[in-house]
């Protein structure tokens, strides 16, 4: 019989689930955590691990995009515990009824009321870190390192099943990882892109006055000593205009499906005031093309002259090319194309003209450590073409403080994804400063 965890060990165990979730960048706060505690105290998990799995997922997770991370975290924390779940139930309930055993002192509990949520979460994380370290130094009765005495999916006689025949246990459900395809950092469908693009909006009152301004009418009528004075105003309209530049062909071919979905979503985004779409190949030179076969086009200078600085510029490309294509005159990929200015000159011209820009890169962030990508990401805030990257990027595009802070924010996000600081290269930075 495997050793049953003692009461004192359950606190760390459960808070470890919270820690594992947050380590996977799932936004779980104290509100959700306390709600879960209440649900458990009410017995809503039916004293089983499967019940706990469903309850915890319903309460802690708010998006199917995080289900997979939840399954992983759950697997790590509760691996091997399943068989013992029945026996631990009583201890579990006893522990859950008393939040003080949550390893927060009375003082800290009192402070919860006073602290802001951010502060609270910070404290909480610190607390959890301490706990984890202490815990891992202990006897390791839940093994992640393979020393666990329990077997995963073993035939334990005490194994718990719910829902009678055919029901599946929590570990099996978590182990299947059925929600992999919903992860925000993996896939993008037209609908998801559409949802992200909907954030592109700045409502302003412009144009013909066709809406009754009720407050204004009342004010004016009162000033008019009761004689009716109708005041009209223009309706609120979205004022966002977007210039979308797409890199097509060559190294972009593997990403063709993702880019075509983005294109479909952009064309369906009727809420945009204006959408201008151009194509380029590998790098932008003096001309941008209106068709993907590079026949018709307009000079970049014309684009700059006919667009206001407030237009939002979105570029989609992998920024992967030979450095000469970016840095040398005559470096364009087509032999017949003799460009007098290097590609970087035109990119800089675009970056200087538009106040808000965004570069979406379909390459995975891990492969961005490459000269031309780093050069380009010095000029434009670069985000990954994933649901997460797109959402973050568009948020920055609409609400950010402008180009340089956008580039810094994108870099921070990239460093967070890589888990290490980005290298600096004065030789590269020289080109873009």
């Amino acid at each position, binding site marked *: 019989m495997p050793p049953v965890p003692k009461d004192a060990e359950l606190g760390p165990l459960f808070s470890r689930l919270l820690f594992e979730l947050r380590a996977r960048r799932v936004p779980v706060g104290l509100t959700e955590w306390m709600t879960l505690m209440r649900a458990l105290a009410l017995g809503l998990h039916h004293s089983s691990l499967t019940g706990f799995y469903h309850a915890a997922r319903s309460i802690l997770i708010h998006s199917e995009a995080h289900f997979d991370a939840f399954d992983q975290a759950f697997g790590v924390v509760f691996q091997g515990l399943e068989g013992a779940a029945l026996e631990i139930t009583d201890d579990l309930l006893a522990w859950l009824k008393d939040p003080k055993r949550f390893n927060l002192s009375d003082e800290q509990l009192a402070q919860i009321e006073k602290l802001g949520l951010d502060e609270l979460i910070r404290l909480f994380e610190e607390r959890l870190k301490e706990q984890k370290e202490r815990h891992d130094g202990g006897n390791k009765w839940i093994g992640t390192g393979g020393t666990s005495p329990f077997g995963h999916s073993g035939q334990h006689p005490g194994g718990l099943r719910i829902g009678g025949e055919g029901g599946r246990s929590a570990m099996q459900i978590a182990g299947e990882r059925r929600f992999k395809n919903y992860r925000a950092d993996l896939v993008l469908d037209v609908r998801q892109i559409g949802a992200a693009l*909907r954030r592109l909006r700045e409502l302003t009152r412009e144009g013909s006055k066709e809406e009754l301004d009720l407050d204004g009418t009342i004010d004016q009528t009162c000033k008019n000593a009761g004689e009716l004075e109708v005041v009209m105003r223009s309706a609120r309209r979205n004022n966002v205009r977007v210039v979308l530049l797409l890199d097509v062909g060559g190294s972009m071919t593997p990403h063709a499906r993702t880019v075509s979905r983005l294109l479909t979503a952009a064309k369906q985004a009727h809420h945009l005031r204006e959408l201008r779409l151009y194509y380029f190949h590998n790098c932008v030179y003096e001309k941008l093309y209106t068709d993907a076969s590079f026949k018709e086009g307009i000079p970049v200078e014309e684009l700059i002259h006919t667009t206001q600085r407030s237009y939002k510029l979105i570029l989609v490309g992998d920024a992967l090319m030979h450095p000469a294509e970016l840095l040398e005159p005559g470096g364009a990929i087509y032999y017949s194309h003799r460009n007098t200015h290097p590609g970087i000159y035109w990119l800089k011209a675009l970056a200087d003209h538009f106040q808000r820009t965004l570069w979406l890169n379909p390459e995975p962030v891990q492969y961005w450590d490459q000269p031309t990508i780093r050069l380009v990401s010095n000029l434009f805030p670069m985000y990954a073409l994933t649901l997460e990257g797109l959402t973050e990027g568009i948020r920055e595009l609409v609400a950010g403080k402008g180009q340089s802070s956008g580039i810094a924010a994108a870099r921070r996000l990239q460093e967070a994804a890589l888990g290490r600081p980005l290298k600096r290269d004065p030789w590269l930075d020289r080109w873009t400063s």
Partner: protein
Amino acid sequence: MSNKAFNRFERATGYVVSDGLREAVNLALCLERPLLLKGEPGTGKTVLAGHVAEALGLKLIRWHVKSTTKAQDGLYVYDTVARLHDSRFGDHDVRDIEHYIKLGPLGESFATDAQVVLLIDEVDKADLEFPNDLLNELDLMRFTIHETNREIAARHRPLVVITSNNEKELPDAFLRRCVFHFIEFPSPELMREIVRVHHPDLEDRLLEQSLEVFYALRGIAQVRKPPSTSELIDWLAALQTAGVSPDVIRKKLPMLGALLKKEQDVEVAKRAVLH
């Protein structure tokens, strides 16, 4: 403390409920939190509320959200135009504003004597701020009618079921308060069960053949709008009514219009399945 007596949702007639969904409904009931349902279109998000209400023996109040819906509409509407109109013709007592206050769906769900199920359908259709504007009312389950200073407080907290089609992201503060459930696309086994609920006397071979075609269509990556459960049920009804033989389903893809709604998709599907 445990197993507090409350109205538990076990099963619904005419609706197949997965374990996870049943747990989520019960969590929402017991924690008195809104239940947020997401999932592909056509997986039965909207109809669930009706079935839960029926199973629990509660009244259902629906609030269908549109792009122009404001949070205030759900609480109450003060019909100033009617009052102005009446004042000119002297039809009613216009001194009492109360006559011109009409409760919205949310207000109504608070004001009724018994617990009700309130469905807020397609919450993502409305403005981005809409869910945030409802936070306070959904938390406290009470609000004040400013014109008359009357407070409407829920005597029995309604079970609030909210559906979203993922058209817009919902604000974090709103999400934190909800019990969330994502209705997965049914596996073929579950789908068989679901179809049986709707078409009890369907011929086995017809069901097997059409399910095979249905999942094949969903598997084609180029299909822009994959068919959903509700479309499958419609298609089966059409096949059954027309008396289509199970043998031709795979060969001819009859009545494909019930499953695929885009011209390009029909082309793609025919190329992929028929050859």
